[in-house]
């Protein structure tokens, strides 16, 4: 028997969780009923719910086209992140001259906001002739420092003797990463997939700058276009938000166990 009853903590946690969910429930409710936030008396459940606002969104703008664009860019970003971050993470687990300086450089780069580097990023993308393209949209988030450190922590948690044994067996560094380390780092991969997907999925500023063609726009740009096309659409606007949120939410719920494990790998020794 525990010394103190646990139910008060659970009660508080349930209350806080419910509070956290209120904005989401509000968005969902408005998308189903179009009720104004100032409607009185306020209600938790929607009055006369229907799905017609979702139909409005589907037809008011080329939603499917935007969805396909977002999926393509996110897929490129996720694959590139796993590829580049795992290689960089492995490199940081090895000893080489100026390793600490390199890590410090990485950490300091994390402090620089993307808005500061946006002009050089634009000029580089232009030089590479990648403006108005999927690859151009994906390029700045093809590798992220946080995810490199997630891989580094995960690789460091794998016994060094395993890597030594693989090396004695004649495996190249490349094969050590792909055949030994990555299969043992599923939680790090899941973390990379979720973070890269969400960053790419929600990215607004970069696509806004480099995309000229309406056919190439992604969902966040579609949302801003939707706002310019439509004036009185509380319900449709919230329905759009739900439709944009849903893929990321599903992905997170599916991989949350590995995601949490990936973030806490290497947090405790032993």
């Amino acid at each position, binding site marked *: 028997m525990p010394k103190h009853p646990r139910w008060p903590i659970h009660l508080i946690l349930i209350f806080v969780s419910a509070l956290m969910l209120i904005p989401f429930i509000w968005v969902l409710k408005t998308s189903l009923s179009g009720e104004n936030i100032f409607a009185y008396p306020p209600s938790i459940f929607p009055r006369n719910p*229907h*799905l*017609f606002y979702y*139909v*409005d969104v589907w*037809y*008011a703008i080329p939603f499917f086209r935007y969805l396909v664009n977002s999926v393509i860019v996110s897929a490129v970003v996720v694959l590139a992140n796993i590829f580049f971050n795992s290689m960089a993470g492995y490199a940081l687990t090895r000893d080489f001259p100026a390793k600490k300086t390199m890590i410090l450089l990485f950490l300091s780069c994390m402090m620089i906001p993307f808005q500061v580097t946006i002009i050089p990023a634009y000029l580089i993308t232009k030089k590479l002739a990648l403006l108005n393209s999927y690859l151009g949209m994906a390029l700045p988030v093809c590798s992220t420092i946080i995810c490199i450190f997630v891989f580094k922590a995960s690789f460091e948690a794998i016994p060094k003797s395993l890597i030594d044994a693989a090396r004695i067996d004649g495996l190249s560094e490349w094969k050590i990463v792909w055949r030994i380390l990555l299969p043992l780092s599923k939680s790090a991969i899941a973390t990379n997939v979720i973070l890269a997907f969400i960053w790419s999925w929600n990215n607004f500023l970069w696509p806004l700058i480099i995309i000229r063609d309406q056919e190439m726009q992604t969902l966040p740009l579609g949302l801003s276009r939707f706002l310019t*096309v*439509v004036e009185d*659409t509380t319900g*449709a606007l919230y329905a759009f938000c739900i439709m944009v949120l849903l893929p990321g939410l*599903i992905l997170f719920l*599916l991989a949350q166990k590995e995601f949490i494990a990936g973030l806490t790998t290497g947090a405790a020794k032993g």
Partner: protein
Amino acid sequence: MKERFRSWLSNRYTITLGSMALLAALWNIYVAMNNDGIITGRVVDRNDQPVSGAIVVLSEKSLLVTASRAKTTTNTDGTFRFTGHHLYHIYLETYKEGVGRMPSKEFRLYFKGQNLFLKKPLVLADSR
């Protein structure tokens, strides 16, 4: 091999994404079977008697404007029929000189060209 296939099939990713794909496929089949763009209904007067020769106007409501798209006249039994529409947010209005008028009534559809068979008749009530 069989065991591997079974574990792949019972994987939560396969179940979730597979269910979504199945739902999307079923929905598309349903849409393909019900998107002939047919609207049928009946027009009656205040005494629930069918009205022949009443004009029924089909209008489209987009997010910005409402525009008239088609017009038809009721048969001797008061029924009317539109075919081949590609709309999803419509208004029906009907009137007949000397009998009455029914102001625009909103009908929302789940996809463009969805067949709509009105169960309740449109009633010509206002004689203005």
